[in-house]
Structure formats: structure tokens, C-alpha cells
């Protein structure tokens, strides 16, 4: 069940825990822990996306409020969530592997928020419940990624993250369907949606408790805790690369907006655009993760940003082909498939196991902060110079950042090259 990640951890040889290999003659795609974590994410995403899908409707049609306040609050929640993520990662690492405990707390907190939505009838209360939900999400993300990383071998890590992200996205696509089926079958069934969402979230916690093994501390690991210096040196390059590329990553909302306006996608299809990206992400996450195991995670990560460059380029053309929006969404999904899980796989290689949770959290937070900065800058550039100029600028910046990352050349395959020894 628990696969020791011996070679990537640090220079000391570790062999106390034998890697569990699948039975001969039957190759399993990923380890059972990764599969279990993917299942937990799938179930949890069904639950949370159910709520996402009906919340605006509930606020406006059910309570007579406007959801606009949340749009403005969301920045606050997101910043808070990023901070909580750092805390979650740190706490999960301390004491030698409390990943599962922290993840259970995070998933559990979000699950408990679902029935509370029913009781919260006014904007402040709903805001508080959603803030708690975001805290849960922030807490669980880093330990979960650390668990995926720690329970896969360096050779199969890309695939492990790819499978996990694909399952996660499948849940996100299913959630709204479940919610609308319930709303169709009921009369004002928001309470039913929230209750079912709670039950589904609770099932996710149960699966997590039963089927995800607790990470044991470094007790069987004869290597001493890695010194602080090594830790940070290992983190600098992946964080720098993720941050640099994040600076040229225009947020989804802008991509869909330009797509709709430049390529003339009818307004009623606007809400469907993210589904196109998600579908491509779902289909490509596992294959591209597998590819990253073969050719190295960083080339795939950089390649994903080349796909994003393709998105910018197509948005800048004046062509009006009905196929163009599909190609743009496919490339956009490819970008996510080649970067989201792959970055975690790539960064894992350089982070000692006893710092995996906090290390991954730092990389994610750096990337998120950079993307937030890019959104602000892009919005300002769009206002000042128009969308085409702003997009051209983003494309140029992306080319520069890709070149810079290629020059930085983070270690790509430490497992086979022992580059981190």
C-alpha cells in the first residue's frame, strides 16, 4: 500500500520500506492510495460542485439576494485559503506525517458546511459558512497532494497526479448534473441539494478514513530530518518556475470573455465554455501525466504553457471558424492537463519527504499569487489598451517566461539521473 519514495528524498540511501509492486503479470495504473485519494476527490467534487451550481440560483430565486457580494468577497476567501494551505502543509508535515489527519479535518470541515447552508438564511451567515468551507479546502489540498506524492514512485508520479486530477475533474463535471436532476425532481429542492451534497461529502470522508493509509513518520527512514537549507534550495527552482509562468497565465474568466467576443460565440453558450476546458482536462490529465513520467515533468509543464501560447495566438486571429472555439478549449484543457498535476509531480522530486506537504504548498501558493497578479495586470492592460493589445502583451510575456524557465532548467528526472544527490 505504502510505497517508499526512496530515491527522490535526499542523498541518503533508504530501503527500510520496500516498494510494493503490483503482482507480476498485472500492471496497475496507479497505486491503491492514489486511486483512493482520487475517489475521495471525485466524490468531494461532486458534492461541492452541486452547491456551486445552485448557490447563485438559491440566493437570487430562493432568498431574493444578489450573488454579487460573493464575487467581491471571493478574492478575500481565496487569499485566506492560500494562507491556510501553507498552514495545512506545515502542520501535516510536523510530527512526521499527519497528512491524513489534516486532510480528514479539511474534508470534514467542508462536509459540515453543507447542511449549515440550509440554516444560514442571510448573506453574512452564508458568507461565514462559505469561508469555513474554503478553510477546509485550503487545509486539505497540500496534505492530499503530499499523500499522492509520497505513495507513488518517482517513475510513476506524473501518472499518479494525472489520474488523480482526471478523477477530480470528473467529479466536478458530475456535480452540477446531480444538482439539476434533484432540482427537476423536487419543488424548491435547495434543501435536498444541500442535504445530498452533505451525504456525498461525508461519503468522501468515510472513503478517506477507510482506504487512505496514514503516512507513517520518518521512523523507518534512517535519514535524519533534512536540514532547512537543503529544503529551501530544493524549493527555489520549482517555485520560481511556477511563479514565473503563473505571471503570464491569464485567468480563465478573461480567456472565456475574449473567446466569446473575438470569436463570436453566442452569449447563451458562455456558461458552457468552462465545461469544454474541463472535458479536455479530464481526457488528457492521465495521458499527459504518463508522458511526464517518460520524458520528464518539466518539459511537459513547459509544453503545457506552449499550449496556452496557442490559446493566446488563436484568440488573436480574426478567423471565424466554428471549429476554432473547440480548438481553443481543447488547448486550454491541454494546458491544465499538462501543468496542474504535473507541477506537483515535478516539484515533488526536489522536496524531501518530511517536508513534502509544506513544500508543495509553497509551490502552489507561489503559482496562485503570480496568477492573481497576472489577472490584475491583464485587467488593467485590457482597460488601457484594449483586449488585443493586452493579449499580445501576455503572449510576449509568456514567451519570455518560457524561455527563462528553459534557461533555469530545473532538474527534470532526479529519480533516474540522481541529479539531486
Amino acid at each position, binding site marked *: 500500500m505504502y510505497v517508499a519514495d526512496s530515491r527522490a528524498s535526499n542523498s541518503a540511501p533508504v530501503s527500510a520500506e520496500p516498494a510494493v509492486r503490483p503482482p507480476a503479470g498485472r500492471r496497475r495504473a496507479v497505486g491503491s492510495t492514489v486511486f483512493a485519494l482520487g475517489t475521495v476527490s471525485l466524490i468531494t467534487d461532486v458534492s461541492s460542485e452541486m452547491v456551486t451550481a445552485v*448557490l447563485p440560483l438559491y440566493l437570487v430565486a430562493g432568498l*431574493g439576494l*444578489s450573488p454579487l457580494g460573493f464575487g467581491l468577497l471571493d478574492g478575500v476567501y481565496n487569499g485566506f485559503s492560500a494562507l491556510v494551505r501553507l498552514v495545512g502543509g506545515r502542520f501535516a508535515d510536523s510530527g512526521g506525517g499527519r497528512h491524513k489527519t489534516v486532510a480528514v479535518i479539511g474534508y470534514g470541515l467542508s462536509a459540515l458546511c453543507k447542511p449549515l447552508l440550509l440554516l444560514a438564511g442571510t448573506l453574512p451567515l452564508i458568507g461565514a459558512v462559505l469561508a469555513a468551507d474554503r478553510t477546509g479546502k485550503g487545509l486539505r489540498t497540500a496534505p492530499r497532494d503530499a499523500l499522492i506524492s509520497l505513495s507513488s514512485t518517482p517513475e510513476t508520479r506524473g501518472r499518479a497526479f494525472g489520474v488523480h486530477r482526471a478523477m477530480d475533474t470528473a467529479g466536478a463535471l458530475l456535480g452540477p448534473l446531480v444538482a439539476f436532476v434533484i432540482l427537476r425532481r423536487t419543488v424548491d429542492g435547495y434543501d435536498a441539494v444541500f442535504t445530498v451534497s452533505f451525504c456525498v461529502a461525508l*461519503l468522501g470522508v468515510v472513503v478517506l478514513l477507510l482506504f487512505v493509509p496514514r503516512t507513517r513518520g520518518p521512523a523507518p527512514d534512517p535519514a535524519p530530518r533534512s536540514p532547512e537549507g537543503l529544503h529551501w534550495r530544493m524549493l527555489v527552482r520549482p517555485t520560481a518556475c511556477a511563479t514565473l509562468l503563473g505571471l503570464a497565465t491569464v485567468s480563465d474568466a478573461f480567456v472565456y470573455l475574449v473567446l466569446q467576443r473575438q470569436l463570436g460565440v453566442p452569449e447563451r453558450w458562455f456558461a458552457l465554455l*468552462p465545461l469544454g476546458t474541463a472535458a479536455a482536462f479530464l481526457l488528457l490529465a492521465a495521458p499527459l501525466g504518463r508522458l511526464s513520467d517518460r520524458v520528464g515533468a518539466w518539459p511537459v509543464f513547459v509544453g503545457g504553457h506552449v499550449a496556452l501560447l496557442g490559446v493566446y495566438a488563436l484568440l488573436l486571429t480574426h478567423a471565424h471558424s466554428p471549429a476554432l472555439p473547440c480548438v481553443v478549449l481543447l488547448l486550454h484543457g491541454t494546458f491544465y492537463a499538462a501543468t496542474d498535476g504535473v507541477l506537483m509531480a515535478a516539484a515533488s522530486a526536489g522536496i524531501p519527504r518530511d517536508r513534502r506537504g509544506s513544500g508543495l504548498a509553497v509551490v502552489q501558493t507561489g503559482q496562485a499569487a503570480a496568477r492573481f497578479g497576472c489577472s490584475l495586470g491583464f485587467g*488593467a492592460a485590457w*482597460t488601457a489598451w484594449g483586449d488585443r493589445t493586452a493579449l499580445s502583451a501576455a503572449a510576449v510575456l509568456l514567451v519570455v517566461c518560457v524561455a527563462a524557465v528553459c534557461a533555469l532548467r530545473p532538474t527534470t528526472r532526479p529519480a533516474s539521473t540522481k541529479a539531486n544527490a
Partner: protein
Amino acid sequence: MTTRTKLTVLIAAVLALAAVATAAVLHASARADRRDRARPGGPAVTTGEVQLRAGGHRLVFRNMAWGPHRDELATTPAGAPSGPRRATATGLKCLRFYAASGTGICLQSVHGTLSDTYRATLLDANLREKAHYPVPGIPSRARVSPSGRYAAWTAFVGGDSYAGTDFSTRAAILDTSTGKLTPTLETYRIVKDGHPYRAADANFWGVTFAADDRHFYATLATHGRTYLVRGDLRTRTVTTLHGNVECPSLSPDGTRIAYKKRVPGLSADAPWRLYVLDLATFHETPLAESRSVDDQAVWSDDGHVTYALPGDYGADLYSVPADGSGAPSRLLTAGVSPAYL
């Protein structure tokens, strides 16, 4: 724990949770049967004819009381709004509604197999459908000009990530005499602080019309700030007048704007207070309502505004003097989207 134990626990959990989930869905779907019974203590609703002609001194709104007429348009005398209400005989349902001078605009959801779509239905004085137009998202605000010639509505578009990130609004204006629809005010020219202005993140919501059938007021949001804009339907231009104004509502005499203002220092969850802005002096008067109001207020006369707050049935209507004096009073329970006729 052995694998067998784990599977047993899992199956038990699945069964228990599925039972709770099924019960919740059945409970909610059985509500259709209970709809025919009003809840004890709730307002009494009967059916009858509802008309939108001006001068009846009546209040027309979306009834939210449980019973067979939930979500239908209903009417009460404006002088005794908490009394029995009369719902439309045709069972016309609206998420949001407004009417003036024999023209009504009803924002409805159309149930599809996998998701809802929305439309704005134009109604004549007898609540007969004259036309309908697609609405690109969840409908939020509705207004008709005092003469009944123009109608406007706002929808929330997007909102694809949890907790409603990336909402944007689209405010549409319809000329009911020609059927010409402006799907979004974003196509209007913007003059901000005296200069032409363009912004990708410009959002408009909460249109309110002047009596001249040429001018209107609305909210413009850009770069995290909101502005009161005065719009001109003939030149297709909007001009910023004042900052921090959302969901304006023009008084019947055309001299003041009631609006919700984001007050600094208040909780980010409940940031709004009701104010009235004098358009001649730009003097702001805080109203006596101390709760956060997330609604576009309606003037019942030149001295009072009506607005919705969350309540036991979803929303209740309240009234407060427009000069900052007095105290808010509950007008009626279980109602939203009022229009005075």
C-alpha cells in the same frame, strides 16, 4: 482493519447516507402535494384577476407564501399590504417582476432537462404574454419606465467556480414599442469623470428609468468600484455622476435616488446600507434601516421606499421613510419584487 471490515463499513455508510439523501429528495419532491396547503400563520391567498393598469393603488409582487400560489404574481391593496392577497388565476410565476402603466416584465426560469434557462416575458395590462426574450443568466433586477414604454432587466452570468467567483452582470434594455432590444449596456459609450472610458471589466446592473422615456440611471462597476451613471437612450451614452452607488431607484418626482451603499467599516458579508441621494445637491441621507439591504428599492410614494430582506419564507417586504427619519416597518411577509400601481 481488514479489507472485509473496511468494505462492510463502506457499504453500511453508503446505505445510511443514501437513505438520508433519498429521504431528503423525497421530502422535497413530496412538497408538491403539500403546496396546496398554506402553512399555519402564513398569509391567505385566493385567486382572482390581476391587472397592471395604473391608478388602482395596489401592490403587485411575487408571492412567496407556501401554498398553491407560491412564486406566482399576487396583489394586495397598497394601503393594507399585510391583508389577504389575490394571486393570478393563470398561475403566472416570476423570479423577478416589475410593472408600470399597463406594461409588465416577468423574469422566469424555463425548466430544461439538465439545466434551467431564463427569459424575460413582456406582459400587457391583462398579464397576457406579448413577447419574450432570452436572458443569459440568473435574473436579478427588473424595471419598467413610468410610461410603460421601456423595460430593463439584469442577469448574473457565469459563476463557474465555488462560492461564486467571476460573476458578471448583463443589463438589457427593451423598447417595447419597437421590440428593439439592447442585450447589454456594455455597448453604450461610457463617459467617466468627464472623459471617454473603456474597460473590459465594466458591468452594469440595476436600471431605473426617468419619466421622460429618454434618460435612465444604473450602476456601473469597474475596477472594484461602483458608480451611479445617468444614461441617455437616444445617444446611447452613460455618464458617471457619483461613486459607491448600487441598485439606484429614482423617486416618482425624479429628484432623488434611493440606493444601497457599501459602507466602509461594515462586515464584508453585509456591506450595504440604504441611502437617498439628492440629485441636485448630491447630498446623501442614510435611511433608518440598520440592516444590510441587498435589493433595488421601490418608491411607494415620494416619501417612502420599499425593499426586501431575507425572511422565513425567503424574503419579506419592508418600508422606511425616505428622509432618514422614523423606523423600518414590515409591510408584508413572504413577498419579493414589488411594483406599485
